[in-house]
């Protein structure tokens, strides 16, 4: 028996190492191909790092962390570093629709630039409405040029939902006044891949929350195409960078879950990797903001944490160079990576059991108690009437067996 297990273990190990070797070979081939086919980065990453005073050593540490986040074996560390250096080769067209530009802001603005930010700065942005210098017809020309120069090769990154009501007329953009729907349809049809960054473009977010007057939808719903969704409000830069790195290394987008989210980033629940989880299982909850439990870092479930319903890697990779993340900061998760979270996760600072229905102030338990009360009243009435009726019957006094 024991020998069987050992044999099986050995076979498994051999298969895994064979698979990894194959993956490594594919990865190297694809990185070579990328270097041959795509133009070199305008600003090489090495120079960027040097000018920002980031050592090679920090960069290698970053590569190791990113390799782990991507759930790849350590042998890929050097490949991740190489892919990060090639990051600037991928032409990107970045579109903005109904949104707040918060995702771009979150990716581009930090108190000090970290490696994620620097890599994003090397991105070969052919068109980005917030960052480009061009305006009006010139801007439109840039977009047309990008579509003409890199047909089927550029990556289309979309930020923002598409209002589909009134034939898309709630959102018109640019000098030619085209609707978001028209632009999105044209650009996505020529892109190698469509990456939706943020919850707006992924699932509609607040624009699509009830009552959704503009009939806003996520890109894949609005256009009926398959997109890679990087939801979050805003998403973690590592999830976006990792997805592009995967594309660079393997020439394909990473495996996606049924909502189009990369499994390596959105495959596990916040709750299962939360540092406050032991307090949840122990039954130690924060009862109100600033109480002794909050000071001790207890579980935020009763303060409306939606970690148990949310699939994301925030707890593992955290934000801003792994400094902190919402639950660590003392506020519950609000489930911003899930579809329609404004509706399904409400109320955001109370447990979901206190969700109210029908615009009123009644929770499920309130409604249940009312229904139980009505049922009890019905039972009491029925019982009383039955009793009175039996009393009024003439033969009531006689037991039935004597009739």
């Amino acid at each position: 028996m024991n020998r069987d297990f050992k044999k099986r273990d050995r076979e498994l190990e051999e298969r895994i190492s064979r698979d990894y070797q194959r993956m490594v070979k594919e990865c190297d081939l694809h990185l070579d191909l990328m270097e041959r086919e795509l133009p070199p980065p305008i600003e090489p990453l090495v120079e960027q790092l040097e000018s920002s005073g980031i050592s090679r050593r920090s960069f290698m540490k970053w590569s190791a962390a990113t390799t782990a986040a991507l759930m790849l074996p350590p042998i890929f560390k050097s490949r991740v570093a190489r892919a990060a250096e090639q990051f600037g080769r991928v032409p990107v067209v970045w579109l903005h629709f109904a949104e707040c530009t918060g995702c771009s802001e979150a990716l581009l603005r930090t108190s000090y630039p970290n490696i994620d930010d620097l890599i994003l700065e090397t991105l070969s942005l052919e068109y980005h409405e917030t960052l480009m210098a061009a305006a009006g017809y010139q801007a439109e020309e840039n977009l047309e040029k990008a579509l003409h120069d890199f047909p089927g090769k550029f990556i289309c990154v979309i930020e923002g939902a598409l209002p589909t009501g009134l034939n898309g007329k709630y959102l018109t953009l640019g000098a030619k006044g085209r609707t978001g729907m028209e632009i999105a349809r044209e650009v996505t049809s020529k892109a190698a891949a469509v990456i939706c960054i943020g919850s707006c473009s992924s699932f509609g977010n607040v624009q699509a929350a009830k009552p959704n007057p503009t009939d806003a939808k996520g890109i894949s719903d609005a256009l009926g195409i398959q997109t890679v969704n990087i939801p979050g409000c805003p998403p973690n830069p590592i999830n976006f960078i990792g997805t592009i790195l995967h594309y660079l290394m393997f020439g394909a987008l990473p495996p996606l879950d049924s909502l189009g989210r990369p499994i390596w980033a959105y495959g596990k629940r916040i709750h299962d990797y939360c540092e406050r989880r032991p307090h949840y299982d122990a039954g130690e909850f924060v009862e109100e903001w600033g109480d002794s439990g909050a000071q001790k870092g207890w579980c935020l479930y009763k303060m409306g944490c939606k970690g148990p319903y949310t699939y994301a890697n925030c707890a593992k990779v955290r934000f801003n160079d792994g400094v902190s993340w919402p639950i660590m900061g003392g506020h519950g998760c609000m489930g911003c990576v899930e579809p329609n979270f404004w509706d399904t996760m409400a109320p955001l600072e109370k447990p979901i059991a206190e969700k109210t229905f029908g615009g009123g102030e009644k929770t499920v338990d309130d409604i249940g108690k009312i229904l139980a009360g009505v049922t009890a009243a019905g039972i009491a009435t029925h019982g009383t009437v039955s009793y009175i009726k039996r009393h009024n019957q003439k033969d009531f006094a006689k037991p039935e067996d004597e009739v």
Partner: protein
Amino acid sequence: MPDIKMKKEWWLSIRLIHWSVVISVFTLLISGFYIATPITFGSGATPDKFYMGNIRSIHTFFGAFLTFLMLWRAYLGLFAKFHARWTDLLAWTDLDNLITQIRFYLLLSEKKPSHRYQYGPLQALAYNGLIFLQIMIILTGLIMVGANIHAGLSLWLGNFLKPVEIAMGGLAGVRMIHHIIAWGFILFIMVHVYMAVWIDIVYKEGTISSMISGRVFRKAE
């Protein structure tokens, strides 16, 4: 003195299932409401406590037990040699009998509905509803177990039921539906117990004790 005969109404497995369901549903309701709005246990060190974890384990265990009981009852409904056929659930299709029973229950008429069926027509309708509630609560429960325990059958079921989870609006929606159905069970229990007592008094057939002894006392017709 009318001729009263003892008639076997509920076979042993049906009685066992009935009382096992009673125990699991009550345990599930209590533990479930605790999980929805837990109490903080402030005293003591964190490593010594596992209240929420234990209560969730109990909830999961009895949920699995309820699933097993439902499968057992479904098996009996399909293949039992004794009286436990699924066709009993169609008693309400006899509309004349249904109307007779509604009039009798609303105390409008003294005419009792026919004894031809194992269940009364309204009872059959209520059980159809109960089966629907049970399937839904088990389905939503399995989805949540799948999200919790990333191994074995629960993991497989969680992945298998992923489209259902998404159709229900993610885990938050699944949890909401689970909670709403729990209230359906409470309402069912209230009416079910009252009707059993009422029928026990009005029919004088020993309805309540029949779920323990298995026998009713019925006048020969």
